[in-house]
């Protein structure tokens, strides 16, 4: 029970934005309704631009919101509802791309860029700092050479 309540709160921390759910659509069971809201926030409204079906007031968004609530009420799991919609509309309907070989570059790219950049920056910083070390003191032969050169200079 508790994890169902935590999930929407957790997601709300990430994704608290405006909502379009009509009063008539809401399920009476608050746990199911919370699940429905959480799933809706990550489903794309296919006739809008980058809005989720939770945010949009388009007719299709309304239909999908009602549909997923019906499926949840009938006992479907969260993943089951998502799979159903993906089987009809394709991966495009998920606002969060799944983490799979086709999307590794997407999900891990930023981390890779950061790591490469951090390594590069660190090497750069070390190079800048290394030159800061004072040069080693002259040894005997070098000192004699220096004295000779200084005399030559006059």
């Amino acid at each position, binding site marked *: 029970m508790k994890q169902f309540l935590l999930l929407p709160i957790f997601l709300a921390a990430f994704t608290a934005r405006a909502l379009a759910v009509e009063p008539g659509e809401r399920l009476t069971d608050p746990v199911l309704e919370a699940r429905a809201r959480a799933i809706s926030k990550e489903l794309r409204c296919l006739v809008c631009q980058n809005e989720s079906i939770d945010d949009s007031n388009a007719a299709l968004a309304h239909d999908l919101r009602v549909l997923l609530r019906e499926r949840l009420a009938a006992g479907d799991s969260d993943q089951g509802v998502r799979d159903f919609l993906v*089987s009809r509309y394709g991966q495009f309907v998920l606002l969060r791309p799944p983490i799979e070989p086709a999307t590794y570059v997407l999900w891990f790219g930023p981390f890779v860029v950061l790591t490469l950049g951090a390594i590069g920056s660190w090497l750069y910083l070390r190079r800048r700092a290394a030159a800061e070390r004072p040069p080693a003191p002259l040894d005997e032969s070098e000192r004699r050479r220096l004295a000779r050169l200084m005399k030559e200079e006059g």
Partner: protein
Amino acid sequence: MRRLLFSLPVALFVVLAAYFGFALFAGGDPHAIPSPLVTQPAPAFNLASLDGESLSREALAGQVTLINFFASWCVPCRAEHPLLMRLAEQEHVPIYGIAYKDKKADTERFITGLGSPYRRIGLDEGGRVGVEFGITGVPETFVIDKAGRIRRHYGAPLTADQVRNDLLPLLRELARG
């Protein structure tokens, strides 16, 4: 080594520009959403039809058919209508219509006024069958082969070019196979 690093930005850019070039010339319509149902069996459905009977997936079996989602409130559907009439009357293509989120009386008026290219019209007033087929609006058209699998999806109104260059050859090929 350092010189190589300095060349990295321009190298990355050239790759990016190549992608953009492909997207411009070979890319498809960015608005189009490819249907995952192509090569899958058509979703099951059972709707009341306009003539008082019913329309279900079983009615399509054994022949190459078109399913066309339309509505009386849809303006582009009217533009597409003459093409469907020609397909039905001249090419004898079996076309089944599904009226999406349309009141029965309005659909009747639409058909009476423009004529019907459809063998039968299913009434999907709730739009649930539309969602089963993954449509996002109307008109959308599906090509279904003899085995009941979806072979092509048109997410936009059919154009004469599309019909001539794409749809008719496909229908002929499916009819043979």
